[in-house]
């Protein structure tokens, strides 16, 4: 839809130039994977592939929600704190610990999850309202939420982690379906739904239009305020989902979970070719961006690169990957 489509290049015969231009970042990912599988025997094992996917799923889910927000020219800095808040709240419903749980806990996992999602949607809704209705810059509104949601997390939990989650709840982090880890399945599902929504529905088009030209969107009769509000709700709910998976994976919800996660999520989106000035981008790019970050982290650990050098290498690799990607529009 946006930019040229895969169909176009296939129709015209495979053209290496077109591929490089349209899928530069995918090439970067493949290149990285080839180098890694060539230099480490474990990299391409099924077990490690599943590891990478599982490790990517949390940042990936955050990045998918972030894509919606960034496409409308917004930004959501609060996702890391929402991860913690929703994680703690849902965990307090799903713990067997008598001190950390709320009255009546443990509740069925599905109750905990629904409450968690509501928490995320609410924080997103608040941030979205501040951005869309009160015209506060998204950076400020969500920075405020970053701080406030972290504080609420600490108040709610009294500063302590919530341990001893029920096995039922933990399943969303540690279980598997036909050998595929549940977080990966959830990530895949969220990706497919997001992809469908963004490319095939009116709402998706409006997200692009609001980011591409808010004035034109408004003049065409689109309720710009509502679209802006919704994307923050989506981002908040997905952050909550990620937070619950995180708690379920680690087995206890921590008040300091998710710190600085917003940076990685935004990075995945931007590496994937979505422009911070809105209106341009593909959700598949975000998937690739998140995978690139995941593979990089996994690969550097796998190869036993020393921690300090890892940080330097990561910086270099991110920039190099994006430089390989010629998709980025050079219009401005």
């Amino acid at each position, binding site marked *: 839809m946006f930019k040229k489509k895969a169909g176009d290049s296939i129709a015209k015969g495979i053209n290496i130039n077109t591929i490089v231009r349209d899928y530069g970042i995918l090439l970067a990912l493949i290149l990285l994977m080839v180098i890694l599988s060539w230099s480490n025997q*474990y990299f391409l*094992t099924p*077990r*490690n592939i599943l*590891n990478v996917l*599982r*490790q990517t799923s*949390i940042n990936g889910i955050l990045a998918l929600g972030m894509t919606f927000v960034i496409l409308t020219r917004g930004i959501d800095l609060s996702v890391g704190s929402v991860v913690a808040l929703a994680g703690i709240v849902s965990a307090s419903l799903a713990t067997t610990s008598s001190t950390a749980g709320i009255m009546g806990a443990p509740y069925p996992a599905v109750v905990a999850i629904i409450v968690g999602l509501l928490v995320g949607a609410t924080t997103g809704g608040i941030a979205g309202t501040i951005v869309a209705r009160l015209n506060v810059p998204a950076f400020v509104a969500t920075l405020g939420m970053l701080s406030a949601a972290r504080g609420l997390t*600490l108040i709610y*939990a009294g*500063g*302590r*982690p919530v*341990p001893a989650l029920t096995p039922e709840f933990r399943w969303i982090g*540690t279980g598997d379906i036909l050998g595929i880890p549940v977080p990966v399945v959830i990530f895949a599902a969220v990706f497919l739904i997001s992809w469908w929504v963004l490319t095939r529905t009116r709402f998706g088009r409006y997200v692009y239009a609001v980011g591409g030209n808010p004035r034109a969107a408004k003049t065409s009769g689109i309720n710009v305020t509502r679209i802006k509000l919704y994307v923050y709700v989506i981002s908040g709910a997905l952050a909550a989902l990620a937070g619950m998976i*995180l708690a379920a*994976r*680690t*087995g*206890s919800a*921590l*008040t*300091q*979970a998710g*710190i600085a996660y917003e940076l990685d999520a935004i990075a995945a989106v931007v590496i994937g070719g979505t422009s911070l000035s809105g209106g341009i981008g593909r959700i598949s790019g975000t998937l690739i961006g998140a995978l690139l970050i995941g593979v990089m*982290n*996994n690969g550097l*650990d*796998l190869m*036993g690169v*020393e*921690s*300090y050098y*890892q940080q330097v290498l990561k910086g270099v690799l991110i920039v190099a990957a994006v430089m390989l990607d010629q998709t980025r529009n050079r219009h401005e």
Partner: protein
Amino acid sequence: EMPKIGAAVYGLNAEFMQIWAAALEQHPAVLAGEVDLTIFDGRYDALVQQDQFETMITQEFDAIIFVPIDIDAGATAVDAAFEAGIPVIGSNTRVNSDNLTAYVGSDDVKSGYMEAKIVLDAIGCEGEVVIIEGPIGQSAQISRLEGNLLALAECPNVTVVEQQTANWSRAEAQTLMENWLTAYPGVIDGVIGQNDEMALGAIEAIKAADLNVEDFAIAGIDGITDALLSVKMGEMSSILQDARAQAQGALDLAISYASDDAYDPQSDIWVNYTDMPWNGGTDSEYSVPWTPVTAENVDALLDMRK
């Protein structure tokens, strides 16, 4: 076949874990090339640590040394390693898991008690103190606070006028203390810093306010180099957490569990700490004693840092 041992630590950016990691690499077995050691930086994130466990399991490590960011959140990782048949030796911070093979560490509640006690003794069990805490919710913060409060309970005439986090950071503690000195002029008698960095920040704030550092009783925990220097100048008290013993002890245990044959520990810590016997390497817990840093031992400790 060399045993492959991984060390997953919560983060390498601050000095304490750096000393810990360096001690690991100075272990005689590593120097002699008898083990293949890899250190993983957990980047202060429980999830990253768990991911690194998965990586180590995939690569079939023979034993893992674990310094978790959180006492509860590390359990899943330990259980996963246990299922894969890999022994996990805890170091520095405990993990709430029955599957932890052994633990070498120092009791944070005890150090919290000790440092608070030093401050309280210095002010004669009477007066006003402030507590500068680590990141709220982190295991060390929770335990050290517990220890702080134990000591404070013994001195009912001491009031805690303020208690805030400075996230283990010297700069944050400095700002915090500057503001407290303004809000409570002439009130504060003692500063309980849950680590040395924050105690040092408080000292800088006191100096910046043109006050006398000697008028305050200040204590920290860990025994980082700057704190040793500060102790030497008589500005503060510190309690040495022996990173070297925690690291090397854990590695000896890891090698012992990783090799089929009987193993004699190689680190000199077992000789130095008579309170902590090797016992064939089969104990489930080794408690590394805390050492208060004093004018007497500070020079020796500083020499070891060179």
